[in-house]
């Protein structure tokens, strides 16, 4: 069962795909029914609902709608019983993307935060930079306070999924 699953890297992002039958394919939990409506040896026209996609294979390179495709398909090796390969991160450390000074800390320990919620304001390059929560979860540790000068990549706080 599991070996029909594949791990696809497309334009720098990862997807888990799994063909359901000849007509349907599951992408990250969403099911699509791509139909190859026309094809020559190296040109394929695919429809999904009202959308059309033209895929070309030119000298071993793929082009979607004329734009070069960066895709890599690998077998999916599941790691049963471990969370480390699950799709969503269960823990995240928030690092300073840039050296600067902590202007505001908008969360407190054990506070629940939503993904993309503003958690810190870092003053760097003369600007107020908003730092957002990378995942939904609970603030487990805060290592800095207002006024601290932080270095690039310094860990500022940690968030864990409940």
């Amino acid at each position, binding site marked *: 069962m599991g070996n029909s699953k594949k791990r696809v890297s*497309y334009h720098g992002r990862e997807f888990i795909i799994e063909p359901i039958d000849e007509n349907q394919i599951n*992408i990250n939990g969403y099911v699509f029914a791509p139909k190859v409506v026309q094809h020559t040896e190296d040109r394929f026209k695919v429809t999904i609902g009202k959308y059309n996609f033209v895929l070309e294979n030119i000298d071993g390179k793929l082009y979607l709608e004329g*734009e*070069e495709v960066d895709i890599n*398909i690998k077998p999916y090796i599941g790691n049963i019983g471990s969370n480390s390969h699950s799709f969503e991160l269960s823990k995240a450390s928030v690092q300073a993307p840039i050296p600067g000074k902590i*202007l505001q800390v908008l969360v407190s320990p054990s506070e629940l935060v939503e993904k993309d919620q503003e958690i810190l304001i870092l003053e760097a390059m*003369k*600007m107020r930079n908003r730092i957002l929560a990378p995942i939904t979860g609970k603030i487990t540790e805060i290592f800095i306070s207002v006024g601290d000068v932080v270095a690039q990549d310094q860990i500022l706080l940690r968030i864990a999924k409940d």
Partner: protein
Amino acid sequence: MTLSPIIRSVLIVNRGEIAVRIIRACRQQSVYTIALFSKQDAKSLHVKMADECYSLGTGTVQETYLNIPKIIDILHKSDADAVHPGYGFLSENAEFARQVQDAGKIFIGPNPEVIENLGDKIKAKTIAVSVGLPIVPSSDGNVDTFEEAREVANRIGYPIIIKSVFGGGGRGMERVNSPRTLRDAFEGCQSISEQFFGRCEVFIEKFIENPRHIEIQFIGDNHGNVIHLGDRECSIQRSHQKVIEEAPSFLDRDTVEQLGKQVCDLARKMGYSNAGTAEFLWSDGKLYFNEVNPRIQVEHPITEMITGIDLVVEQLRVAANEPLHHKQDQIKLVGHAIEFRINAEDPHAKNLPQSGKITQVIIPGGSNVRFDTFIYPNYIVPNSFDSLIGKLIVKGATREDAISIAKIALKELTISGVQTNIELHQAIIETRDFEKWNTTTDFLNKINIVKILRNYEHMKVAAISQVMEMFKLKVQPSMLGYSQPTSKSSWRESALREQVR
């Protein structure tokens, strides 16, 4: 056509598509063009196109395109008659304009005093009120203390926005929803203003929730004539950066006529010459004056499309002391134009700017399709500047026509080598809200663009995977390097980019 001999050569203090655009207008007027460039831009199109060019050396934007002493030095060396600042960089820098004038050269833009007055938002509002333009309820001048801020906020009601008096381009602004966060925001905004703009003065305004962004293009000459060239709507924005602009706006023509007249009064009163744009917010049937941008704007081509007037050529003419070539009653708005800003950015990854080598460009064509750009195959998009790499402009007899032309053009437009936001535009114009012209500044959130794009990406992965599996396609690993995870340095680039505008 030739310009008055006062301007025989122009130094273009900018880069990218606008530098190319200015070179074209100069050529048309038989004006000699002089470009300048930083080291990363040595292979940029404006450098290749210009008649003469000077290096700004290497370094940050501050050390190159914002380096006034270096640029003034080049101005002397090149002996250009005039300077065109384009948009961004030094275009709204009164000190630079003054130094150009002091060097005995023409600054293609309003006088330094006018730029200064407009840069002071409180002064600009006072003048706006004096010609009858409506403004947003606000503090009476600067707000210096927290106590004062609290009083003003209570008077005009939350939400409010704290703005740096000398700020601009979406920087130095803080929205406050409740008294709870007022102190932090107020002090934060003061400290940022101090550091970023060198002046800590801030003021407070009522925050207009999800307005529509309307603007009036105008142009004045050195002889006291001012005309307006109609309106534009630029509501579709992403973190204060315009994404799609249209001309004309949805406003009824009587309102635009009235607004245009008042804007011309404002410009005349200020002694404004050259091109400018007055920005307004529209909310619940009410218009509020926001600010005047004393320069050519990114979206000027949509006005050119519906008026048939070349705005950059007009800028050169009025700078050369010629009177305006058009009277107000000769300005007719014909059709509907839309501009799509094509950025090198990944719309899925929080619009992080992308850099890389352009491997392929296919530029759409046909009647009423225009593409202003500076990229070409094998050009390496540098990572130190604004992410704008091109502007697709289309025109139709009606808005509906313009949209259908845009759909075709966006499908044709192909850029490989860097990730772009072309798909973002395709997704936007497919929505019902865009079609129905329900556009407000929160448009992208409202339509949940992130979800639309994700779904679209899933479909693409489905289509490609299906074909690859069905036909057992073997492909070579791509050399594009999209697969490398977006690094922290892109984040820095994004921060840098915000500084430029």
